């Protein structure tokens, strides 16, 4: 990629990651939530891979770590669901709800958003790595 693309990527990829984390954490107050936030975080890593080549991006988040992160997100989501059994039924909102419009309110919803963000972000990055890395090696 040309020098202009590399310079702009170096300046903005951290901001894209921060914006994705903001959308995930404020999912219960403003529009957003786990799903678009996870996709934005995956897009920041894909941006790094498109501008600098696959070695730089895979050095920051290689395939084994992304796979572990995705499984961790799924297990966290299931764990929150099953631990609702403490109060009565599956997916019970057992953390106390706090007052509205604060950051730490709404029970299990912020924790579920974080779990979904790990899962979606790491999963989509793995899909892109599989389509790029493995199709490059077959083209030679």
């Amino acid at each position, binding site marked *: 990629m040309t020098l202009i693309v590399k310079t702009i990527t170096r300046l903005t990829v951290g901001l894209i990651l921060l914006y994705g984390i903001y959308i995930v954490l404020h999912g219960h107050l403003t529009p957003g939530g786990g799903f678009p936030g996870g996709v934005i975080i995956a897009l920041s890593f894909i941006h790094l891979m498109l501008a600098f080549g696959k070695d730089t991006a895979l050095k920051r988040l290689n395939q084994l770590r992304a796979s572990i992160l995705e499984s961790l997100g799924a297990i966290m*989501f299931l764990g929150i669901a099953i631990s609702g059994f403490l109060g009565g039924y599956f997916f019970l909102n057992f953390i106390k709800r706090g007052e509205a419009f604060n950051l730490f309110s*709404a029970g299990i919803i912020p924790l*579920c958003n974080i779990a*979904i963000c790990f899962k979606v972000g790491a*999963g*989509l990055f793995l*899909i892109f790595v599989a*389509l790029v890395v493995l199709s490059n090696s077959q083209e030679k």
Partner: protein
Amino acid sequence: MTELHLLLLFMIVGAIVAVEARDLLSSVVALGAVGLGLSLAFLILKAPDLAITQLVVEILCLIILIRATIKRDLPFIRDGRWHFNTFSTLSFIIVFLGLAYISLKDLPAFGQPLLRVAANYLSEGLSKTGAANLVSSVILDFRAYDTLGEATVLFTAVMGVLAVMRKTGRIKD
């Protein structure tokens, strides 16, 4: 709602360009334009969660389509039974649109939804869950089981892509 009609006409024109363009890269770019028009339509229809999600998912879908198909452009010819195939497809679509026009009269008028279940969610969403974003409270508290199903579908799709694109051999250079 004239802006919604204009936006839908723009999307239809973009879809016709995406279907009929001879170059694969042009049709993928036209598909991106249709997705952008859809994100604007979600914003006009007062659904900001969906506008954000549709925009970023559209970007990722374009990247995957372009990255996978950039070098594989092929020309095409018309073969034998072209007239019969096109005529039967167009007649099927005309019959479908005619029947849809008859049955669309039974839907409630545009702008007056029924809201049988959603009226409960609107009135007691804040007091039962404590979240200000009512769509988040529906996804992750009232209907959390469906989100578990969606997480499973995403997991399965990632497993499927990794299994299909497995390396069969290594080319040493």
